[in-house]
């Protein structure tokens, strides 16, 4: 009986690990798909030294070459309100998890020699 419990517990743990992996894979980003979605970002983030004026004047961050998971996590944090910023909350609020993953994949893939986005 103990053995049966251990076996079923083991199976449950295995299943939960597997479903977690499956879920993580569901929102795998595509840099190619992101290429078409950056229109919402480029008005600020594609301009050298572009400055935001809320809540103080500062240059908006460079996104090219940044970690994909960090970009996606930041967008999620804006959407949830964990990060507060009126513009970024509005934009992130309009994005799905898939959009975020695609944008993250796109920006993380950028290097100094990347070709100019043909769609922008």
């Amino acid at each position, binding site marked *: 009986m103990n053995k049966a419990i251990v076996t079923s517990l083991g199976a449950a743990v295995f299943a939960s690990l597997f479903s977690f992996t499956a879920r993580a894979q569901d929102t795998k980003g595509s840099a190619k798909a992101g290429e078409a979605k950056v229109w919402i970002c480029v008005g600020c983030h594609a301009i050298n030294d572009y400055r935001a004026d809320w*809540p103080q004047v*500062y240059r908006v*961050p*460079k996104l090219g070459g940044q*970690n994909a*998971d960090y970009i996606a996590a930041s967008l999620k944090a804006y959407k949830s309100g964990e990060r*507060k910023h009126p513009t970024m909350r509005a934009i992130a609020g309009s994005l799905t998890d898939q959009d975020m993953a695609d944008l993250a994949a796109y*920006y993380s893939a950028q290097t100094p020699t990347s070709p100019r986005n043909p769609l*922008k």
Partner: protein
Amino acid sequence: MTKSALILTLLSASIGSAFAGNVAKGKELVEKNNCAACHGAGLKAPVAAAYPKIAGQYEDYLYYALKSYKVDGNSLVGRNNAIMQSQVKQFSDKDLKDMAAYIASIPGDLIVKK
């Protein structure tokens, strides 16, 4: 005329340095606080994918971001990341500016791209 030129020079110098933090002081604080424990070697190789590369990021953005973790109870400004909130608590705004200046001065992979 010489006097007005002098005033102009002083003015523009003060505007130019209005933001600039002290890089050497910032380096000291960044190393002492071990920012590299999470943000990685050269602050551009984070130990977890969900952490950002920060080397070479804009100085004024870094300061804005660091300061955001200190803001509490404002509905429009602030960041709630528990790790970063506990990190920045100990620093003055001047410290944060110095750290931002140092981090921005390190060469990194970050670029502006369409």
